């Protein structure tokens, strides 16, 4: 029955999108996190999606392939009054664009909603099919 497949497909997309929302939230939360040395600075995390294929190589949903960390070098700020500043008076901050993260968040939430709509429609069609001949 194809409609049961839709629940799996839309469900996998919802899982993937909510993980994307999670990483975005983490990036925004840690955008102002300063650190005393460049190695321990928070690195922005990004999800990578890929299509799930079944044995007949038909596409049957989406999965999060991996979560990659940003390779961008942290920002170096001169702040000698900060207690965690290094011996030269510098602190390090991740180079995260909050605006970019917000755009990413909106995109993820819209995609999530689209999949909820799909699931709702599939549910309605299934419910009406159960009433066939009554």
């Amino acid at each position, binding site marked *: 029955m194809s409609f049961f497949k839709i629940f799996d497909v839309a469900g996998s997309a919802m899982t993937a999108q909510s993980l994307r929302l999670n990483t975005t939230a983490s990036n925004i939360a840690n955008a102002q996190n300063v650190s005393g040395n460049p190695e321990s600075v928070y690195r922005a995390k990004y999800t990578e*999606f890929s299509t799930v294929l079944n044995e007949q190589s038909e596409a049957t949903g989406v999965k999060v392939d991996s979560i990659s960390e940003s390779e961008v070098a942290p920002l170096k700020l001169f702040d000698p009054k900060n207690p965690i500043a290094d011996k030269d008076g510098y602190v390090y901050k991740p180079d995260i664009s909050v605006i970019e993260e917000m755009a990413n968040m909106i995109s993820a939430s819209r995609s999530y909603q689209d999949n909820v*709509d799909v699931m709702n429609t599939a549910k309605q069609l299934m419910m009406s099919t159960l009433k066939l001949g009554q």
Partner: protein
Amino acid sequence: MAGLDNIFGIHEQALLLRAKRSAVIANNIANADTPNFKAKDIDFMSMLNKEMNGAEKMAKTNGKHISVTASSNDNALMKFRVPTQPSIDGNTVDIDMEKARFAENAVQYQASFTFLNGRIKGLMSAIRGD
């Protein structure tokens, strides 16, 4: 009296194909953010023609022949969409268009369903005779 096999006409096959098509479009929507994903769709017209006319069906000339299932070569009738605004990551899903197609497909499913339901109700009243 005509065989009961054809009593539902085109709608029996149409309903199954609509359900299949909605799964394909749901998958396009699910992969709207997947890099290099290419949107696909079922060529509904040719698929339905195939189901109805059996143009590609194999004839069973002997009682021991195994019938070829309808879904065995469905993948050949899946076609890639021509992208209107392809994105830089190689994805060709146009989410607004896919949502419109999904809604259209759902309405057409309901239409086939209504026809089927009417046919069943007609038959039931014919059987009961009241």
